[in-house]
């Protein structure tokens, strides 16, 4: 009974700590927005989060939405880990959407996304993923009537 209680509290604690599930909390406090976490630690945290074997759609989407809200372009290792997570979730639409997100985060600078594409190309080939350009989604395909014109 004690062991099952311990196991349950451990899994509960693990669930509470999502996505901050590295052993030492690397300076991310909830008081001010000045984080003492370094870039490498940040990358490692998100990469290990996406690489969790038991990740599910909710957590994956939560992490991707958080990344798209931050003022950064995700490192290729984070992108690769996220695409592998999509593969485990059997959700190709999520993977393509995430690639579109990364491209959008690169902003107007034209040299960032080709670099990321080049780094993740082996993963794309291995998973059989198409980039949005290959699907023809770099240009608008369908038009949506504005709600103000209905």
């Amino acid at each position, binding site marked *: 009974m004690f062991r099952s209680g311990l196991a349950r509290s451990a899994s509960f604690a693990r669930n509470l700590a999502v996505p901050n599930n590295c052993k030492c909390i690397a300076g991310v406090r909830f008081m001010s927005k000045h984080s003492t976490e370094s870039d490498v630690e940040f990358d490692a945290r998100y990469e290990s989060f996406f690489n969790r074997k038991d990740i599910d759609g*909710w957590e994956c*989407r939560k992490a*991707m*939405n958080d990344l798209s809200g931050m003022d950064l372009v995700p490192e290729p290792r984070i992108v690769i880990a996220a695409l592998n997570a999509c593969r485990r979730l059997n959700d190709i*639409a999520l993977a*393509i*959407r995430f690639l579109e997100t990364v491209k959008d985060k690169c902003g107007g600078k034209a040299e960032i996304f080709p670099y990321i594409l080049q780094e993740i190309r082996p993963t794309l080939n291995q998973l059989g993923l*198409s980039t949005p350009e290959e699907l023809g989604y*770099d240009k608008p*395909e369908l038009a949506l009537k504005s709600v103000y014109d209905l």
Partner: protein
Amino acid sequence: CIRPLILEAIRHLQLCRRKANVIKLSYYLFELGMANNLVRCAAQQTKARITPVISQIRTAHDHAHEHHAVGDPVKIVIGNREIVGFGMNGQPNYIDRVDFPLPAIRYKEVTPDIQVLKEKEKGDWSKLTIEEKKALYRASFCQTFAEMKAPTGEWKSLLGFTLIGCSFAMWIYIWMKKFVYAPLPDTFTPEKQQAQLERMLNMQIGPIEGLASKYDYEKGRWKE
């Protein structure tokens, strides 16, 4: 007949304790199950000792949800769509935003042909054709990023309406000048203005830095 449902709901809640919104969803499902179960129980039970309890619970339930008689409110709104995430605010809604790319529900409802594609999605993705990948994307999302960010051309109508407004304002001024304002006094004629200027020079108005300082009184003409 109520007890197994309660146990099942508790088990469901335990499995989903990480996700606050699924708890909310399971509460709705629990209530739905409760409502269905109570209807069945009320129909079947004839024993006097149970009926008062059921009727008490039922009135409490009905009192809590007077505005809909049957049906899970979430399912009424979203239909057959799969809830896949927390979304922006925890509600099962869909929105296309470039800064929040993954909404809480898939865009399209689950239909048999989409189900076929989803089964194929579980296999190797390189076996999917381009059309199938596009169909799977459109099943989950309404607009692509390119479509979200595409220019609408709204600026043309804005500029047009603004200029129409400006020209209308000018027409109003013309009408005011013609029909509202009194005519200018006769001191505005060129001869009278000339006479006023001569008088100002005679009075030496602005002798240091103003009008008279620019007039050469010895030579009787303006300074160079």
